[in-house]
């Protein structure tokens, strides 16, 4: 049984606007890594927020772990597109927020937070406040915050878009390790086709007005995937294929 299912899901923000999403059908299996691609403004964030229980569908049903989703579940951790930090807390304190909401963090928690922060390359910056951080550093704080929770389901909205190639590669490894270790089900929005291919079991293409799942594209490279996979010709071919597919879909839509 899939861990996440969407049936005929539609979402309309205001009655006077056309729906943003309509007729969304989506099944995601436990432990699966699904990337969502789509043009800017197509409705990716909206879909992810629906999956996270942050928005409620206007039509249709979303089930997570067999239960109908009405508000966020404990098993789900959501990484927002724009890094959201509390200005009055430093990096470490920001990372500890979700834990604090569950229980008083103990020394172990703090040690683990340091580890995660170090994994995202912020070891030197734990005591900085948000206004002292660069854009990419802010994103990485929110990533550390998510990783620390070792979630069952991880929803990430363009988490690496503010990062340079090197840092991004490092974090790919961190993410893959984590999802492997906890067999985390991951839904991942990105604009980076190579990244989507490298990380995913399946790529979902969103498009149309209102947006729906235009195409699903399975990626079958075996796991664990090494960094070298990206230089593999099969990998490059797959990426190209995906790229062409997207371009084709886009051309259809031209007005």
């Amino acid at each position: 049984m899939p861990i996440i299912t969407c049936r005929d899901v539609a979402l309309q923000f205001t009655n006077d606007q056309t729906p943003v999403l309509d007729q969304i059908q989506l099944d995601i299996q436990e432990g699966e890594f699904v990337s969502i691609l789509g043009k800017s403004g197509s409705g990716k964030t909206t879909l992810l927020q629906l999956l996270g229980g942050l928005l409620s569908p206007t039509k249709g049903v979303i089930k997570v772990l067999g239960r109908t989703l009405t508000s966020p579940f404990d098993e789900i951790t959501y990484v927002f597109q724009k890094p959201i930090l509390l200005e009055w807390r430093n990096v470490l304190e920001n990372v500890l927020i979700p834990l604090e909401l569950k229980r008083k963090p103990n020394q172990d928690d703090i040690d683990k937070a340091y580890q995660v922060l170090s994994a995202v390359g912020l070891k030197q910056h734990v005591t900085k406040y948000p206004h002292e951080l660069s854009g990419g550093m802010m994103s990485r704080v929110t990533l550390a915050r998510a990783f620390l929770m070792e979630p069952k389901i991880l929803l990430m909205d363009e988490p690496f878009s503010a990062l340079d190639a090197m840092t991004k590669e490092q974090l790919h490894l961190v993410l893959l390790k984590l999802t492997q270790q906890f067999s985390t089900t991951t839904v991942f929005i990105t604009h980076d086709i190579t990244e989507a291919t490298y990380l995913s079991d399946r790529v979902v293409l969103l498009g149309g007005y209102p947006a729906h799942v235009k195409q699903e594209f399975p990626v079958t490279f075996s796991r664990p995937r090494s960094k070298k996979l990206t230089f593999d010709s099969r990998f490059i071919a797959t990426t190209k294929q995906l790229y062409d597919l997207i371009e084709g879909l886009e051309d259809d839509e031209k007005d």
Partner: protein
Amino acid sequence: MMKRTNIYSILLFVGILAAWEIVVRVKEISKIILPAPSAIGANLFQHFQSGYFYPHILATSIEVFGGFFVGAIFGIGLGFLVAQSKTVREILQPYIIASQAMPKLALAPLLVLWFGFGYTPKIVIVALVCFFPLFESTVTGLSHVSREKLALFHSLRATRTQTLWKLRFPTAMPYIFSGLRVAVVLSVVGAVISEFIGANKGLGALIIASQGMMDTTLMFSVFILLTLKGIILYQLVNWIEALFLKI
């Protein structure tokens, strides 16, 4: 070294005092209508030396602190409650507006009647007067959290209480301090007005007494004491705010 603007400030002050003194002397304005600054200075000095002011300052301080404390607890507390629970908000809404709109100082004569004489009615009045700006600023502050942060806390399944303490409260802090500044100054006014109604002691009682004696000079001295008191309390709030921001 002193800042240039500080020097201007002081010069302005000296200039105002000098102009005042000259006008009073040249126009021979009666001291009942406008005493000269020199006379006020002398009066202040004399009464401080004789210890005349101290019990009055003490009495007003007790009322101000007591009332401010009670008013702050209720104002901020009820602000939290109302920000927290939609039901409470909707039920109490008309009462809160009414209680805010009511000219509480005009209630003073009745409160004195109901609560008897002594500190109680004065503390009640000061508390009532402080309540409103604190309540208002607490509610405003607590509801000015960005959608994004609320979404984050929603996604983290924070309870209402957790959102209140870990998100809304820190956001509301500058608003609450702004309310405290208003309240602390109003609390002095409240104490004085309540002492007008009937008090043996206190700076407000002294104003009434000075009026009875036609001693406008003394009245000005008391104003100056009250203003100083207000400034000290105001700066105290600023200082506590700075302290909080540092933590």
